[in-house]
């Protein structure tokens, strides 16, 4: 009788633990790791900005939240941000090096966040750098 009770109790504990694990796994789903994803598009910085400035809605439908590769010349560096061809603002992953000089040609890979009409720049985050 006692054995049965212990068995039932331990079964219940295992069940509850499994349920808790499943719930926490669904609730705390993992974030995308942009660095591990393949780029879906590869565009020059000026072209990317042009399509957004021209028709934000259709450009957004195509590029927003996608992992893309962008090429261009570094025109500005500030902290973990670089600007490509004055048109694309790239926020690098925190561990990315920012020892880049203005004028250098780069290709970056990151997530397209959207178009900033105050700066007239496309913003990209979680980016890493492939030197050209």
């Amino acid at each position, binding site marked *: 009788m006692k054995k049965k009770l212990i068995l039932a109790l331990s079964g219940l504990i295992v069940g509850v633990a499994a349920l808790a694990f499943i719930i926490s796994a669904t609730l705390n789903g993992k974030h*995308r790791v942009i660095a591990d994803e393949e780029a879906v598009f590869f565009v020059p910085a000026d072209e990317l900005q042009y399509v957004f400035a021209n028709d934000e809605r259709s450009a957004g439908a195509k590029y927003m*939240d996608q992992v893309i590769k962008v090429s261009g010349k570094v025109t500005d560096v500030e902290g973990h941000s670089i600007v490509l061809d004055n048109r694309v603002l790239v926020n690098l992953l925190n561990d990315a090096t920012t020892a880049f000089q203005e004028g250098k040609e780069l290709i970056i890979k990151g997530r397209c966040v959207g178009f900033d009409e105050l700066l007239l720049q496309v913003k990209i985050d979680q980016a890493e750098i492939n030197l050209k």
Partner: protein
Amino acid sequence: MKYTNKITQTSIGLLLLIGAFQLQAQKLVDRNGQVAFKASEALFEPVEAKNQSVTAVLDTQSNEIASLALMKGFRFKNSLMEEHFNENYIESETYPKATFKGQLKDFDITGVTNQPQQVRVDGKLELHGKEKAIETYLNIGKTGDVLIITGSFMVTPDDFDISIPSIVKNKIAKEVTISLDFNLKAL
């Protein structure tokens, strides 16, 4: 003599021109400002997110201030919450950004010191296709040549026609606190 006159005239003209350009170039910008919001209810999982790439522009001549946050730039601790925020509540594919346009009242950039002062701002916040008038106070100070603006204000999901399904209604606060932290510089 004539020549020197002409040279003086041209240089005065040039100086005036340069002066005019300097007056025009009085925009201070932060391209990676912070905006966070909190809609947490006690006992439930915190509902909060932060955007660290918000743009803010202040025209120190007209005291007009503008800010823009891309909705996809808001990061949550919980990725599922982030997904719901984008897809069900904010609908970021249709409404990809939030903008604020306003005016600092009785503000003079030359009077700003290291000691933050309260400055009133009146403006409009637009998000999810709806607009709401915002009147609040900002703390404005400076460190070196960086103008530091911080502040917070409250809005409600109702203000912007964002409906919260009844199943999660008690997990999301009725009032959402939005806080901001900008470091503006001349570009």
